[in-house]
């Protein structure tokens, strides 16, 4: 364990911690923009925005808290005038090349830049100059790339190369025009991108924004943490709900997925509120399926079960349960077949 002092508070943290973790442990919040909290073994790799800078006694330069390892006896200050001045300058520089259209921007309400400018009372930038003018790339089916809104935090590159490991993105150009892009500035649809959306999920701004059917503001949606319903990995995710409809999905750091999702988990949710969903029981009458009440459907089913069982015995009945429904439902299904139908003729399609 290492002992240090942050803003006058004594903190003790494990040896390989970074300043930002020590501050968290002491209940002191240091603002960040490029830092990716997930992925412990990659922390500090990014350190490009310098918004997290702090003063360390005995050091000439301000230190990025997200990339500075703790040392015994360190004395750290996170809110001096110098620190705040430096943060403001960073933000003003970022804002000097950022379209200020928060009124219509889809990221408003969870934008790293917007939140920080709010926190530090930055209305506009004192640095005026040329603005980026990148073409907007709408070639991907699920997200839009607008590099005019990029703050060069590198999170997307890190998500794609170090976590998703697809290597569709890297930084191109130097200086003012530096920006993350697929090779040769091609549309992303022509790259090796697999549309996992992990870059989109970590982007702090609207530079990478999901295409959504329903427009929503981030403060309008409720979030429910649940498990992906597609494959057996069991990724954890949040369903974003507006007006009773699932309008988006964001990854959660679960034990199996560690904050990643694939294209199905991230973008494959429109089936939920699809107009083709079955909304009422159907019963076949004169060869056609017609709408019925639950009571009619239940009565018919139970009647058939009872009669078939009485006439031919339980083994004339069978049920196929599902690898897609919950454990509790699978349990009740086999209970229904075994205890209700009187047979062990129950199986599922897991072999497929």
């Amino acid at each position: 364990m290492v002992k240090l002092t942050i803003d006058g508070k004594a903190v003790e943290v494990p040896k390989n911690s970074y300043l930002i973790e020590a501050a968290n442990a002491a209940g002191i919040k240091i603002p960040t923009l490029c830092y990716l909290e997930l992925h412990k073994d990659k922390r500090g790799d990014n350190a490009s925005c310098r918004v997290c800078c702090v003063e360390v006694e005995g050091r000439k330069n301000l230190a990025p808290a997200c990339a500075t390892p703790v040392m015994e006896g360190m004395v750290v200050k996170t809110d001096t005038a110098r620190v705040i001045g430096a943060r403001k300058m960073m933000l003003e520089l970022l804002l000097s090349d950022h379209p200020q259209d928060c009124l219509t921007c889809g990221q408003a309400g969870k934008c790293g830049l917007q939140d920080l400018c709010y926190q530090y009372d930055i209305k506009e930038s004192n640095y005026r100059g040329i603005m980026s003018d990148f073409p907007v790339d709408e070639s991907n089916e699920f997200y839009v790339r607008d590099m005019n809104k990029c703050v060069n935090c590198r999170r997307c590159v890190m998500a794609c190369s170090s976590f998703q490991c697809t290597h569709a993105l890297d930084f191109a150009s130097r200086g003012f025009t530096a920006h993350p892009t697929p090779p040769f500035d091609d549309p992303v649809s022509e790259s090796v991108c697999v549309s996992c959306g992990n870059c989109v999920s970590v982007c702090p701004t609207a530079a990478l924004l999901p295409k959504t059917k329903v427009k929503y503001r981030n403060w309008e949606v409720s979030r429910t943490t649940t498990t992906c319903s597609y494959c057996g990995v069991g990724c954890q995710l949040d369903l974003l709900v507006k007006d009773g409809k699932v309008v988006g999905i964001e990854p959660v750091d679960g034990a199996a997925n560690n904050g990643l999702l694939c294209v199905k988990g991230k973008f494959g949710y429109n089936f939920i509120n699809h107009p083709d969903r079955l909304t009422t029981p159907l019963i076949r009458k004169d060869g056609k399926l017609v709408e019925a009440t639950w009571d009619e459907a239940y009565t018919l089913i139970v009647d058939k079960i009872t009669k078939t069982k009485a006439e031919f015995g339980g083994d004339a009945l069978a049920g196929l349960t599902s690898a897609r429904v919950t454990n509790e439902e699978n349990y009740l299904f086999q209970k229904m077949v075994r205890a209700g139908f009187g047979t062990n003729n129950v199986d599922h399609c897991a072999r497929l």
Partner: protein
Amino acid sequence: MTNSIAEVVNSDVVFITGSNTTAGHPVIGARIRQAKQKGAKIIVAEPRVIDLSSDADVFLQIMPGTNVALYNAMMNVIISEGLQNSAYIEERTEKYDDLVAAVSSFTPEKAAEICGVSADDIRAAARLYAKAAKASIFYSMGVTQHTTGTEGVMSLSNLTLLCGNIGIESGGINPLRGQNNVQGACDMGGLPGDLTGYQKVANPDALAKFEKAWGVKLSDKPGVTLTEIVHKAGHGDIKFLYIMGENPMVSDPDLNHVEEALKNTEFLVVQDIFLTETARLADVVLPAASFAEKEGTFSNTERRVQRVRKAIEPIGNAKADWVILMDILNRLGIEKQYSHPSEIMAEIASLTPSYGGITYERLDQLGSLQWPCPTTDHPGTTYLHKAAIARGKGLFKGIEYKPSNELPDQEYPFLLTTGRVLYHYHTRTMTGKVDGLNALSPESFIEINPTTAKELGVNDGAKVRVSSRRGEIATVAKLTRTIKQGVVFMPFHFSEGAANMLTNPALDPISKIPEYKVCAVRIEPFDRVSDYV
């Protein structure tokens, strides 16, 4: 899985066989690549060049259906070069001699001929695997969907035991389950011979426990499996069939037969979220709620039980599957009422030792629990067989290589293998309703090697007729060098141009899994005018 997903990043060697991981289980694919970035060596044995092939230190492009030949030859190399873990074999396994006898004559040269790869590559793979301190194996349906699928799994298990990779962190033998809750469906007794937690219906003590809990007399005669159910339904022996959340009209082998069988079933109930191909044949269709509309749990491929939470109300008059089933149970005279799925979990836990310590309270608090988790103070189990192999000692089984049930011949000269694409899931009940996914993968196709295609006179994107002894479909040719000459590949997701019109329903005698991965087909270009009318 014997081990947990997160452990793979610390493996020294990862052997991927019969799994196109980045398509079937994309996030595990990403984590295997994270392992590679940390220095792990990768071995891939697959019939096609897959994404992970480019990450592989050794890539073996084997003929479909020759897994056992490959594994046997790898073990032959390991034993003849003395690379096996003798201390582990001595201490924790038995019947080692059976294995030695079965593989001693199975040289890499012999396997090379059968598998269509080089003997040196087999040696390289064997050495890499055997010399690793922690080697993990990941496999999927490419191993199991064969008439010799169970033997393929046993053979892989021999390989792990031989090198002492069972019961260690970042090692193990890890099947990747296809659908989100396959593990749970099996755990919960969705099997003809097993009650929850794999307690056998033929075990009088287990049966008595359930009879007492449920208050009814139960049958001790194991039921019949899916394929037999469909078969019996077709012959009128099964008169009432209830299908929940499955679409055998696209997923089963030999679809012509399935359709006929379901049409012949006297009374068919289908419960699903959409009017699927199967639901269209039903006598009663019940509208179910989607995962977003209900509470519950799923068990993932690493035995991890995680919560499903309700975000929205059921659409229209749809009901959660558990509510529907409870209503029917109640009407059948089994009176128990549940006000929330947590109460069902409590009943499961009371009857199932491996789920004994799982409660909603703990899941909400801890995020997840991996079974076995026998008591409420048990932390769950990240990897199995830590102290000893579950059945006592790890048992070697000598496995002989057997060819697939149906191989190409003059009439049907190509070997068809089937699988998944990244952008769709199973029978597309859900992904088919997502525009972007359809745009990326709009229709059925068949992958053909350009040389083979040239001989056939088929161009890229051309319509072709593919036929087997079971049926005939039209699909689109996709020419690619990622597949060998003489082998062709189709995804099984699509109901138009369905691969499963062609597949061979021959079953593995033990697991009853059909041989989806190998059948013989004929391919013809659509050239006559009459083809288009």
